[in-house]
């Protein structure tokens, strides 16, 4: 009979509460005598004392056991009290093993280390495993099960069986079953047990299970081996599917970044026929607005940090939009109908804006923080989804929908379309065309600005930020087809996904080169993009 079994028998007899280990919580002071017992006796007695400690089922004893196995547990010679001690120069810093509060210092001669050997370490590990498996916090229980899964320790099977009987949380229970299966496969139990374990792992279906099953396939024989190899094939298939899904996710995520960068350009270039080379700088201005907002918040009202992006969004829209209107009024309005010259003039403006930002904020990257809800990641099946990418996708789609609504459902959108289709007729109908031009350009620039807020979360905020996006944005607009926002959406998503699918085979840079060459060739086939406008007017 193994040690753990006897342990749990004792536990059952003493408390009669195996089914609810969480109840077995006790006050530190009732545990202290048990812990102090560790200071006495030889290895065999220590083993029993560890058993007694584990039998309390109280996670509070875990730090002491952990310290014991690492050789950090000491007792004071004067009164036999046990402490976790850390060497500090010539003396030791003492920590209370139960409350984990500091308990003063002790000289080198005043304390003595409690000795452990390898056998005891193993006992402690199992005891720790079972203690944490019975912890009241489901997260701790899950972690304990994951640890056993990784260790594949056959000694953990009994503890897991007990814990499984008591477990009520479905998710933790599954992890425990998987851990048990991993341990079973590593033990010398009989074939039926192992077949069950293979089935459990096969249902698990991720890379961890795959590597386990691969080693099982290599080391076992007969029915277990064939079951394992079946399971391996099944898992490999599912992993391939999940990989594809992950690639699509990355692609959509890249696509939404492209969409954000390009959608403002789609208005100024696609709707107005103005090639705005300073578009990237509008994105940059949005990112710097975020930086300034966060800077102000950091120094004056730190509590608002979580909302900094919501404050930055309207500000970035207004700042970039106003600069856009100024550019339109100052320069572009003289150049309508001469797209190549707007290209040159706006390139000049982009140089000026870059240098202005460099003069004000310095040439180096600026630190823009992620709020809590933008950082971290979660697992969906076997995909890892980071929150910042997810919110950027959501945000890009919202911006797209919002822009569509503005252009289709508001009077301003109606006027914009009227002016871009037939300026003279629109003017005759009483629309103030110069105003509409300025506002449309401001809208495109403002959207670039809010794109900058989003991009500041995933990219370096530096004076060159805009330059990095301008070529990609043009590719998206040209690929999608000028003058069509749906084309921009489809173009951005297609290029994003294609890029991400090429990357595993070609590498990031080569993948990007392929995409560029692909666009160059595509333009030959469809010189007006994916969603080309048709009709006589296009040729003009």
């Amino acid at each position, binding site marked *: 009979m193994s040690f753990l079994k006897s342990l749990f028998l004792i536990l059952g007899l003493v408390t009669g509460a195996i089914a609810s280990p969480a109840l077995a919580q006790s006050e530190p002071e009732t545990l202290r005598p048990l812990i102090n017992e560790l200071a006495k006796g030889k290895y065999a007695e220590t083993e029993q004392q560890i058993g007694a400690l584990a039998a309390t089922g109280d996670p509070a004893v875990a730090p002491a056991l952990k310290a014991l196995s690492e050789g950090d547990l000491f007792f004071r010679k004067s009164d036999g009290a046990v402490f976790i001690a850390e060497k500090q120069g010539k003396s030791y810093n003492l920590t209370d093993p139960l409350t984990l509060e500091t308990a003063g210092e002790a000289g080198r001669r005043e304390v003595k280390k409690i000795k452990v050997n390898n056998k005891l370490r193993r006992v402690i590990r199992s005891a720790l495993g079972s203690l944490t498996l019975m912890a009241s916090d489901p997260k701790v229980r899950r972690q304990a099960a994951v640890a056993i899964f990784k260790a594949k320790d056959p000694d953990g099977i009994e503890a897991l069986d007990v814990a499984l009987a008591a477990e009520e949380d479905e998710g933790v229970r599954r992890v425990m079953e998987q851990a048990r299966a991993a341990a079973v496969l590593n033990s010398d139990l009989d074939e039926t047990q192992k077949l069950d374990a293979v089935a459990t792992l096969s249902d698990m279906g991720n890379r961890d299970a795959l590597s386990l099953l691969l080693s099982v396939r290599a080391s076992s024989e007969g029915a277990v081996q064939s079951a394992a190899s079946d399971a391996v094939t099944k898992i490999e298939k599912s992993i391939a599917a999940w990989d594809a899904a992950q690639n699509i996710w990355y692609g959509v995520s890249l696509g939404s970044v492209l969409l954000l960068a390009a959608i403002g350009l789609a208005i100024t270039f696609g709707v107005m026929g103005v090639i705005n080379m300073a578009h990237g700088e509008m994105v940059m201005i949005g990112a710097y607005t975020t930086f300034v907002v966060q800077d102000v918040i950091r120094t004056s009202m730190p509590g608002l940090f979580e909302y900094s992006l919501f404050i930055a969004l309207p500000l970035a829209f207004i700042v970039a939009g106003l600069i856009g209107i100024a550019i339109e009024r100052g320069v572009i309005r003289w150049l309508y109908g001469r797209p*190549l010259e707007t290209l040159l003039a706006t390139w000049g403006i982009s140089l000026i804006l870059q*240098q202005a930002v460099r003069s004000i904020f310095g040439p180096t990257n600026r630190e823009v923080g992620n709020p809590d809800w933008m950082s971290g990641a979660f697992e969906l099946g076997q995909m890892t989804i980071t929150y910042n990418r997810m919110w950027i996708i959501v945000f890009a789609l919202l911006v797209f929908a919002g822009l569509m609504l503005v252009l289709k459902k508001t009077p301003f959108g109606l006027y914009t379309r009227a002016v871009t289709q037939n300026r003279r007729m629109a003017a005759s109908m009483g629309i103030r065309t110069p105003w509409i031009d300025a506002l449309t350009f401001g809208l495109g620039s403002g959207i670039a600005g809010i794109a900058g807020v989003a991009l500041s979360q995933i990219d370096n905020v530096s004076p060159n930020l805009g330059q990095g996006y301008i070529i990609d944005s043009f590719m998206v607009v040209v690929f999608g087809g000028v003058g069509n926002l749906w084309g921009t959406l489809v173009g951005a998503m297609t290029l994003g996904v294609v890029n991400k699918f090429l990357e595993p085979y070609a590498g990031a*840079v080569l993948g990007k080169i392929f995409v560029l060459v692909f666009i160059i060739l595509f333009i030959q086939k469809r010189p007006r993009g994916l969603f080309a406008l048709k009709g006589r007017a296009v040729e003009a």
Partner: protein
Amino acid sequence: MMSSFLFRAMDAKAGLFLAILGAAIVLIPAGNLLVPETSPFHVPTYAVTLMGKYLTYALLALAVDLVWGYCGILSLGHAAFFALGGYAMGMYLMRQIGTRGVYGDPVLPDFMVFLNWEHLPWYWYGFDMFWFAALMVLLVPGALAFVFGWFAFRSRVTGVYLSIITQALTYALLLAFFRNDMGFGGNNGLTDFKDILGFDIQADTTRAGLFAASGLALVLCFLICRSITRSKLGKVLVAVRDAESRTRFLGYRVEHYKLFVWTLSAMMAGIAGALYVPQVGIINPGEFAPANSIEVVIWVAVGGRGTLVGAVLGAVLINFAKTWFTAALPDVWLFALGGLFVVVTLFLPKGIVGTLSSGWTALRQRKISARYEAGSDQPPSPAPHSPGAAANVSPRTENTAPNASGAAKPQPAE
């Protein structure tokens, strides 16, 4: 026949320009090599190199002016041809180092030894011979331009779309040349050159020689461009620029004309790059940057597109200003350059030379009409062969329909 072809290029204005350029080619090296250093007329070697660099830029600008000013193809990718020519020359210079490299390998350039390459890649074969490298300086940019133009012009990619995909072209090359496994030295590029044609590349005489070679190449390319633009071919090009469909309907194979000047222009850019590299001593992927191509367009726009002389003048002036600004007021340079762009497109759409020459034409017209009104002369006729007058046709005709491209957009699909 060739001489008559080149003879057509000559007139008073071109003569003046060539005289100035010729004087520079003779006087600057002479001032460097023959005048003693103590004399106030001595030209320091760094100045010779600097001006040699300007001349190669001028040649690049000339190439851009040929396609943009006369054929209406706004290339935002000419830096690609420039850099390809430069790489071809750089590969030759790299092979001339021999065992004098850091690793002393007689065959492999330093960066290949560093990256543990075993053999010279096949595309490096032949670059130990100057004639082969010189051939490649013409052929590589020419072939790329031919293939690119073949596709682009046949499928009638024009205007803004063409500009954007030329930018994509140079950007793709930029990314490619940054890769270490391309065999062109990755982001460090090719450098540490020693000899060219057996002469020490650092020597004063070689520097002067390279300057003179750049000047001669510029003269030669100028004559070729000028004879093209003044020939019937040039008239067709201007027709393509101003009304492409109309020219096509008249029976001209527009794409052939475009392909010809486009490829020729790319080769000129290649020559410019090849002369640039030995003078600055390095070629790296940064030369492919789209921003470089756009900057060339600015030189041409400032000098005056469609004037040839203007392109040269713009390149030299702006680069001189750049050298001065980046040394004296580095922070102001981008403001100045950006401001120049805006001012030139808004107020000087014909550039310096274009404005001056149309001012000159207008003045002469007024004199002639004054004489006509006095009843002593023939009725006025527009001055023939005035490049400035030809150049301003394009913006004006485009301008008659304000927001032509914008007005053309039908409603987005409902």
